[in-house]
């Protein structure tokens, strides 16, 4: 138990930065915003350094009574998974912030809102009590809404509206679920609930509350999380939102916000409702596969860069969920496959964060050079005119394609290794998704980068400037390094995954 309140600091710093920006009129906005944004990465690294992977359970925990009468605690903690996602947020946020603030005449409000958003996202990853968790979960919507609405494209208003409303509708289910849990157990703390579940008393307590309550609670939580990490049928808000949102925000949305959904699946559904998850595993697996395959298919049809990227991130996140649901159906004897699937899901979540960010930055670069238009047709032969942009986006593209040697492959291989072990048919269908992904990404690459310079590329099309390179380079290096040596991040999640695999029921 480390004594430094690192996690509170982690969440508070961005918010403090936002406050400072708000209060200090003459603040050097960009510098200040970056300092606070990057500070979370520094803290993340410190947390990682102090993190003892071999020990299971939560570290850097802080637990103080918040509302004693309701037994609600201000409980923060870090386990392998949250550490991974905190680091992801730490890496992606500066990238997103840079993209948001690029060539913005009055960056103050945007930076302020972004910092709020980042704080809320970090809050979600470290909170261990439903109360603070849900607050951060909901609060993240507010700045996102305003960022999208304020600096988004033409249809931003409507997109932001649908985004917030659908997410809220979903989280209403979540709230109901935890209300039921609270009614049954009297506590909302994840750790205590997990303990109850481990002792097997949770289902009994829930049925005590009402006949159908356990399933209802499960469905509520599932819907809430499914909307956030777009599980197939509930993803309709995503394309419009990613297309209309300002590139930086879209980047943050896809890289981090969708991971909040995946994190929720692991932290809540996997831990608290394993039985229900197992019962519905097949259906959910089908949906996730649908997301993956149909998502990729739909991406093929898109002519708008960002909408295509939206579908591609739907595809990738769906792969994580495929792995999760396959693992949910796992039984004793399939430990290896379950471990492969779960660690694959987490690694994929992390890697997709990186590759999606890079892709969105490139999309932003393309957009800014084509006068805000996002249609493929507006581009052609960009590689001839802007080779560095082509090179960087090539790396990002092939990483999200799953080319071995880059980080995308590691997650993909683990997921397929796991899913094949658990549900071979799903793996086979999944490969169709992979093929489609390769197809639409290369089509995009061919239409935009190859061929003679045409459209916007014909006109003044400056190559990446120092700012953009400074943002993209670390991402590409990270992608290559993690591709070659995924061992850097897997040790954190291994004990977690082994623990989960050990709890598989008898066949």
């Amino acid at each position, binding site marked *: 138990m480390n004594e430094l309140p690192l996690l509170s600091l982690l969440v508070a710093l961005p918010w403090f930065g936002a406050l400072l920006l708000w209060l200090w009129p003459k603040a050097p906005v960009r510098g200040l915003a970056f300092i606070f944004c990057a500070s979370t990465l520094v803290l993340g690294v410190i947390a990682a350094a102090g993190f003892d992977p071999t020990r299971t359970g939560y570290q850097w925990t802080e637990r103080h009574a918040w509302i004693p009468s309701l037994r609600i605690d201000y409980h923060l903690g870090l386990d392998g998974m949250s550490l991974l996602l905190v680091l992801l947020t730490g890496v992606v946020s500066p990238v997103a912030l840079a993209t948001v603030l690029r060539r913005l005449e009055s960056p103050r409000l945007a930076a302020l809102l972004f910092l709020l958003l980042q704080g809320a996202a970090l809050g979600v990853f470290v909170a261990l009590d439903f109360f603070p968790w849900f607050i951060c979960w909901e609060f993240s919507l507010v700045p996102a809404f305003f960022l999208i609405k304020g600096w988004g494209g033409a249809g931003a208003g409507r997109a932001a509206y649908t985004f917030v409303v659908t997410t809220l509708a979903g989280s209403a289910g979540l709230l109901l679920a935890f209300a039921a849990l609270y009614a049954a157990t009297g506590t909302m703390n994840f750790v205590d609930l997990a303990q109850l579940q481990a002792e097997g008393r949770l289902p009994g307590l829930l049925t005590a509350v009402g006949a159908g309550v356990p399933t209802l609670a499960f469905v509520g939580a599932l819907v809430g999380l499914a909307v956030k990490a777009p599980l197939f049928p509930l993803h309709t808000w995503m394309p419009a939102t990613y297309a209309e949102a300002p590139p930086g925000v879209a980047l943050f949305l896809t890289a981090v916000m969708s991971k909040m959904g995946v994190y929720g699946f692991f932290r809540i559904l996997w831990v608290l409702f394993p039985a229900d998850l197992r019962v519905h595993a097949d259906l959910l697996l089908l949906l996730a596969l649908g997301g993956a395959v149909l998502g990729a298919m739909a991406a*093929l049809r898109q002519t708008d860069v960002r909408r295509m990227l939206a579908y591609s991130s739907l595809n990738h996140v769906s792969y994580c969920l495929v792995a999760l649901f396959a693992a949910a159906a796992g039984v004793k004897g399939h430990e*290896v496959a379950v471990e492969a699937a779960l660690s694959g899901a987490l690694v994929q979540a992390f890697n997709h964060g990186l590759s999606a960010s890079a892709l969105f930055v490139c999309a932003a670069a393309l957009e800014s050079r084509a006068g805000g238009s996002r249609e493929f047709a507006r581009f052609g032969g960009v590689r001839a005119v802007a080779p560095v942009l082509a090179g960087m986006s090539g790396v990002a593209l092939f990483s999200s394609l799953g080319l071995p040697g880059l980080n995308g492959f590691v997650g993909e291989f683990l997921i397929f290794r796991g899913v094949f072990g658990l549900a071979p048919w799903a793996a086979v269908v999944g490969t169709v998704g992979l093929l489609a992904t390769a197809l639409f990404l290369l089509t995009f690459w061919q239409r935009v980068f190859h*061929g003679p310079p045409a459209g916007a590329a014909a006109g003044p099309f400056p190559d990446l400037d120092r700012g953009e390179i400074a943002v993209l380079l670390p991402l590409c290096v990270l992608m290559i390094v993690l591709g070659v040596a995924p061992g850097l991040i897997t040790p954190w999640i291994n004990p977690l995954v082994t623990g989960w695999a050990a709890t598989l029921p008898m066949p």
Partner: protein
Amino acid sequence: MTLSASLLWLIPATPLAASVFGLFAPRTARTLPIAGALLGLVAALGLSVAALAGALVDPAVRATSDFAWFTFGAQTLRLGWLLDPLAGFMCVLVTLIGLLVALFSTAYLRHDPRIGRFFGFLSLFVAAMLGLLVTNSLLLLFICWELVGLASYLLIGFWYERPAAAAAAKKAFITTRIGDLGFLIGLVWLHQATGSALFHDGGAGALDAPTLARLSSTLLPGGWAVSTAIGLLLFVGAAGKSGQFPLHVWLPDAMEGPTPVSALIHAATMVAAGVFLMARVFPLMAADQGLATVPFHALTGVAVIGAVTALLGAVLAVAQNDIKRVLAYSTVSQLGYMMLAIGVGSWVAAVFHLITHAFFKALLFLGAGSVIDATHHEQDLRRLGGLAGRMRVTFATFALGTGALMGLPFVFSGFWSKEAILHAAEGWTVSHLPFAAGLVGVVLTAFYMTRLVLEVFFGKARGEGAAHAEESPGLMRGPLVVLAVAAVGLGWLGLPNWPWLQTRLQGGDWPVHGLGEGFGLMVVSTALVLLGIGAGWWWYGRVKRTDARALDPLARSWPAVHAALAGRLWLDELYAATVGRAFAMLARVAAFFDRWVWGGAVEAAGRTAETVGQVNRAVDEDGLNAGFDNTSEHLRGSGRRYAKAQTGDAQSYLRVVAIGLAVVGVLLLWGGVR
């Protein structure tokens, strides 16, 4: 000086390091990337020779050195390097041909501004290929396999300004990708089944006997042995990469890339990777041979596909008008022969043919390259012709290559390796059809090569490019000569009576039998070759075409057949019609569903919420508010009436007070109120 297994990783590492120069150097850099690449190749060649020497010390032993990649959950993925004669020979082959092609490219691409990038990609390709050859793990093999695919994509699409090249690159990558998916499933299944990612891990590896016995014994629901299924899945990957039917369509289009690329990648090395894979995992493929109960044997599938591809490649090569496409189809056909050899059980013959084919096919391609360079990028046969006189060395080397390809008896390496395959095919117990296909292939091969030679080198120069062609520079002719020597000499390594190569590859004894035993077969094949040449001469030698637009003699005699062949049997259109449209349809359905069905549902939810809001407002507005409004109006009205009572006249108030006093008094006193 021998190279131990643990240093094997140096072989792929050096070209990789060289590629970094090419890729990250500034775009217009020339000398640094070229020098880097050549140096890398030379070093790799040296190391490969050392490794081969090491392996040949004791051909039977497989030296491995393993390392842990990363752990997931409780499992640790271990990868490793493997040194055996097969790897050694292949490394030498790749590095040698790579070097020669690199030298050729320095001249061939001297005008191209992005030559630095080209050599970067080239080194990357060689590195990936070498990695693939020396690995002891199927996973690492898969990783290199994909990187090779990437390199081919980059090289095919090198001149990305040309849309055709870009499309070809994408098509190549996608088609190989389809194969790779099969490979991935196979890889995953193997790891699932064997628990190890290594081939040979002291008995626990995937290809070690005990695991193979376990695999072949476990049966799938359909009765198939697991090993068969995994074998076939891996074969799908190999088919993709080696351009076997039905995944061969990308190879002819890959000719869009620069000729040295075609020479190195699409003739000698990369396409051979599939065959190498089959050779490497042969024990797995053959695991189910002994089981009679198993309904289908993996190798049978390979043989059938190999035969079909051989026949198909040869047939399609006949009607092509592009010099490189003819050679491409010829490669497809030869790869078919190699797969046929593996299918019939003799992977050694396949490897032997692979080695010889690599050299003479590289020779032919580079010859074609020199012709193209000389005629200022003229690739259409109809506009070539009469180059024999102008380009003597190219013609001579090209003729030697053609001889080796057709398998002219005794002198050329092609003859011996093809003989070995036909001999093995003849001995195949399952069915004789592959043998027959092989023979027909021999005839067709002879025919289209003769056509090619006659069209290009003999007759009148039909295009102005051909008219002014003069011999290529020295740097291009050097490699041609070396390759010509190899094309001729290599055959003697694997003579039936002196099977030096085969024993080394087999790592054990190889039946030595005199010339007489397979003599009958040799006579038949020689006859077929001569038949092919004669036919070739009959159609194309007798009356030289003088006009580029003149009808192809073959078309005159069999127009329908020729048109079919020219259209490549409309296979591409067939694919487009079936797979392409299915995909597009699926995509359209997905997009439609996405926009209307799910979107619709959300939209509907939104609409209902709005209408509920509307109704609520209406009720609220007309119902409740109206009620409140008029009551308050009523109150205000009465209020105003009462206000009138306040007259302001004090006395009127006092009167009221007095009366009130009286009334209250009366009530209190007598009202009995108390």
